[in-house]
């Protein structure tokens, strides 16, 4: 069920202030007035405090319903959906899971994930507004599609982007970043905030290593430069190599 609320959300305040547009006239007077009448008003407020407040509401709601929430982030195509498909097939018997997947305009990922039998809600964001991440209010609304009493684990597949999602708390318990061996080894150094805010890194597509000149040690070192204590799981969503320790760690977090 697509939920599309971004566009209205973004632009509503414009029409309210149209009446002020006549002030464009008389520039000279305005400049002079600036010096004479200007008054500084202290605000000191986080620009994203509205998002943070909704994220906290989400966190309280998830805690009350005993739902563990994981936010999965990566560049486009690193394998988030593939990893989640395989992860769900491992854990569905033990953990009642649901998925929210953000996608700019297709429903391919939602269709792939629904095969697992988990309820999936797809959130279409508006590419025009530069929307490149999921935010707390989107999750709050999307969650209405689930019965949280019947869910133990909610997985959120964020949009493919290593910059913006790092800035937006959604009320999740755990953040995981996926990096694939077909990307540069220096990605962690280029996107340090993402690797700081996440609790684990999945180094995916290791089945391809024999065909690549990828320096796996450099990648691991770079992750640890940015976040020295970060657990790294080297996996392949194709062959499922490395999945045992990743699943074991995830289950520990869920039940811990």
């Amino acid at each position, binding site marked *: 069920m697509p939920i599309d609320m971004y566009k209205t959300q*973004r*632009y509503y*305040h*414009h029409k309210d*202030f*149209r009446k*002020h*547009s006549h*002030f*464009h006239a008389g520039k000279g*007077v*305005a400049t*002079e*007035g*600036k010096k*004479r*009448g*200007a*008054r*500084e*008003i*202290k*605000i*000191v*407020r*986080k*620009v*994203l405090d*509205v998002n943070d407040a909704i994220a906290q509401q989400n966190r309280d709601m998830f805690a009350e319903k005993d739902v563990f929430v994981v936010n999965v982030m990566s560049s486009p195509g690193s394998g988030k959906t593939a990893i989640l498909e395989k992860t769900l097939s491992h854990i569905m018997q033990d953990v009642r899971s649901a998925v929210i997947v953000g996608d700019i305009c297709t429903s391919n990922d939602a269709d792939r994930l629904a095969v697992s039998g988990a309820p999936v809600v797809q959130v279409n964001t508006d590419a025009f*507004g*530069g*929307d*490149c*991440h999921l935010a707390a209010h989107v999750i709050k609304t999307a969650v209405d599609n689930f019965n949280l009493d019947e869910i133990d684990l909610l997985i959120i597949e964020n949009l493919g*982007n290593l*910059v*913006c999602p*790092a*800035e937006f708390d959604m009320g999740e318990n755990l953040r995981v970043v996926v990096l694939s061996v077909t990307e540069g080894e220096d990605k*962690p*150094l280029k996107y*340090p*905030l993402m690797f*700081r805010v996440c609790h684990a890194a999945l180094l995916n597509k290791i089945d391809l290593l024999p065909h690549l000149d990828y320096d796996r040690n450099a990648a691991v070192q770079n992750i*640890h*430069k*940015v*976040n*020295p*204590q970060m657990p790294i799981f080297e996996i392949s969503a194709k062959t499922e190599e490395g999945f045992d320790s990743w699943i074991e760690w995830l289950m520990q977090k869920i039940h811990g």
Partner: protein
Amino acid sequence: MHEMGIAMQIVEIAIASIPGDLENARIDRVNLKVGKLAAVVPESLHFCFQIAVQDTPLHHADLHIEEIPVVARCADCHVQWTVREPVFKCGQCSSGSVEIISGRELDIISIEVVDEDTTDAD
């Protein structure tokens, strides 16, 4: 990449902060602090701000961005330093347990407001 959304949020907060006693206020300047680690590119935020202020009381406003360096502190030996490269390991005791003290800011500090009625009357 999400600078447009951020710019609109800034405009919204600025408008909401105009004091009630200023009927016809115009905002001339918005002072912002942006940490170097924040996922915001100042140039791109300036550009989006120019668009976001159209048809609002901020349409003449300048956006002033103060960039805040990344400062980290070792959780073990408590030494504090300015992070110039994205390496978060203690240079003194090699601990990997490092907290970010500043550099993630994305805060509106103040606005500068002019009452149009007063200036017009002069």
